[in-house]
């Protein structure tokens, strides 16, 4: 797999919308969505329930045709191509394993439809069974295996024909923690080895962050932001994205001045304090007098004295997470603020609830949101 080929676009979604129903009950499941998914990329769609993830997958698979817009697969227009002519396989959210066939027959189904030679089919089936650790249940009917086992069969069935693109609709949601971890690593390995483009749907943000090359955060039929896990985590553009992934503090800031440039920078004052900070200013906000600023809890530091602190507040709660502790503060202006800090052995700092504490925030930790 050459470098240029890897960077080629596998799926190009261009201004696609999908509406269900008609006027009084019109549902805009997807509205004007555009994304480019690269070849051999692990691309994740992340968003809350009902935001249109499954709908987007169904459009790519071809079960549904878009209300408007266009889709390309390897530069070929597939907008109206039936699903059986697309080299795209799906791991369904509901598995949809054929109940009249055994585990092995389910896996071989796609290969038979592609008229592969017999010996190749049986070799691939065995390979897939080994991959998902289901060799022993080969001849079981699919209604006689557990939910997690069904999920693994669904995965094997979709992988067997070696499609160009694999669509996975929450494929790991029914597995227990350990199996889930194992399958995550397995999936990642498969994706790297096979050169198949994975489009993965989840609403588990941790899973999205650890597995993806890039993530698209969706809400309400729109794609809000596309980026690497790093970009999404450290530079969320909108409050929804910041809020949906990880923990966040949102603070109102006063815009003191804006310096034009690319990007524009602003000097800001946080939550009624006097000190000013410099931060990149989104173009859409350049004329506003106030802005919402976002700070990750682990990017703020707690200190005993209020002197030299960026913000000050009273400790209201402490939540112990093993490696970390979350300190919940009520700032002097009444807003809530969370600081997450690592627990160290021999740490001398043991604040008590009700203590007046200081929060130190580095300038780099401050990000101005678009909305």
């Amino acid at each position, binding site marked *: 797999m050459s470098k240029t080929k890897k960077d080629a676009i596998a799926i190009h979604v261009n201004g696609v919308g999908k509406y269900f129903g008609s006027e009084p009950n019109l549902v805009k499941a997807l509205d004007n969505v555009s994304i480019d998914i690269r070849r051999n990329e692990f691309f994740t769609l992340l968003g809350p329930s009902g935001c249109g993830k499954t709908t987007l997958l169904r459009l790519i698979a071809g079960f549904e045709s878009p209300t408007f817009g266009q889709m390309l697969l390897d530069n070929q227009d597939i907008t109206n191509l039936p699903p059986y002519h697309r080299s795209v396989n799906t791991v369904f959210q509901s598995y949809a394993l054929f109940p009249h066939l055994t585990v092995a027959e389910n896996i071989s*189904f796609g290969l038979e439809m592609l008229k592969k030679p017999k010996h190749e089919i049986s070799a691939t089936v065995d390979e897939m069974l080994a991959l998902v650790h289901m060799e022993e249940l080969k001849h079981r009917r699919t209604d006689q295996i557990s939910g997690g086992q069904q999920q693994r069969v669904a995965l094997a069935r979709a992988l067997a024909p070696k499609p160009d693109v694999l669509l996975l609709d929450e494929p790991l949601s029914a597995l227990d923690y350990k199996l889930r971890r194992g399958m995550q690593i397995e999936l990642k390995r498969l994706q790297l080895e096979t050169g198949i483009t994975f489009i993965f749907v989840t609403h588990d943000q941790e899973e999205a962050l650890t597995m993806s090359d890039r993530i698209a955060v969706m809400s309400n039929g729109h794609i809000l932001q596309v980026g690497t896990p790093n970009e999404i985590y450290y530079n969320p553009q909108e409050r929804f994205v910041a809020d949906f992934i990880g923990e966040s503090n949102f603070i109102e800031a006063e815009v003191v001045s804006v310096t034009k440039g690319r990007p524009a920078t602003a000097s800001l004052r946080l939550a009624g304090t006097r000190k000013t900070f410099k931060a990149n200013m989104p173009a859409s906000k350049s004329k506003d007098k106030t802005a919402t600023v976002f700070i990750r809890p682990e990017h703020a530091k707690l200190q005993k004295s209020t002197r030299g602190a960026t913000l000050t507040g009273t400790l209201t709660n402490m939540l112990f997470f093993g490696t970390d502790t979350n300190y919940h503060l009520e700032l002097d202006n009444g807003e809530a603020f969370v600081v997450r800090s690592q627990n160290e052995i021999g740490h001398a700092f043991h604040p008590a609830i009700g203590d007046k504490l200081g929060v130190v925030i580095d300038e780099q930790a401050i990000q101005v949101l678009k909305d």
Partner: protein
Amino acid sequence: MARKLSEMEAERIKRKNLANWLLSMPALLLLLFAASGPLLIVIFYSFLTPGNYGGIVWEFSGDAWFKVLFSQDIFDDTISLSDAHLSIFWRSVQLSFLTTLICLILGFPTAYFIATRPPKTRNIWLFLITIPFWTNLLIRTFAILELIRNKGVVNNSLISLGIINEPINMLYTDMAIVIGMTYVYLPLMVLPIYAAMERFDFRYVEAGFDLYASRFKVMWRIILPIIKPGVIAGSILVFVPSLGAYVTPRILGGGKNLMIGNLIELQFGQGKNWPLGAALAVTMLLIVLLALIFYMRISQRSEQKDAQ
């Protein structure tokens, strides 16, 4: 320990089975008397001697059973296979089979159509399917007669459309019987297939398309195998009453083209040979049983073939 547990399990199942038997006793008794009783009487009669004016004489005789398959020449007592009876049996099986096949070909798409309508309109379609049941069978059969006779609606319209010049002679043929029975029994095919289809999860169709199956393959490899129980039930529900049909062949076959039902009726009526009638009835029952066993074998074999 493990042995003991398995013994306990066996004990538990035994107790459960006993309870099941006791609970189903009333139904079993009813079945025994209401279903087996008349059947036993029929079997019993088939071994008696016919009375001169119908009815039976209480005297054992295997004559009726002999006559089901063989006939004895009245002049020289030579024994030969009874062509008349055998050909009627064979025709009955053929016509019933044809009727079942046509009902399947018409009923399957109909059931599919209804099952794929939105839930609200489904009931309207089902309602329409059952409307013919509201009218008496005799009247419906005469309506068919009116449609297909030489000067009937079908021939007249075909002629006036210029498709044919001479009327097609349909009435009093085997075709008429098949048309009539198809019309009468079609709902019995549609309803069980619909019931299976309605439970069918159409996401399997999507999964099939996803795995490169064409529409034809999806129908053949996914939909049909899953709804097969409905198809089997429908086929049995059509085949069995077709084999015993009496009114339809009598009216549309014009009395020349007999089926087993008519032959039996003849023995109890004009023929005044009740034991022969009873023996013929039991024979029909055996044919149905054989057909069912044959059918089960075939569907089992296709299942095994699927499984390979």
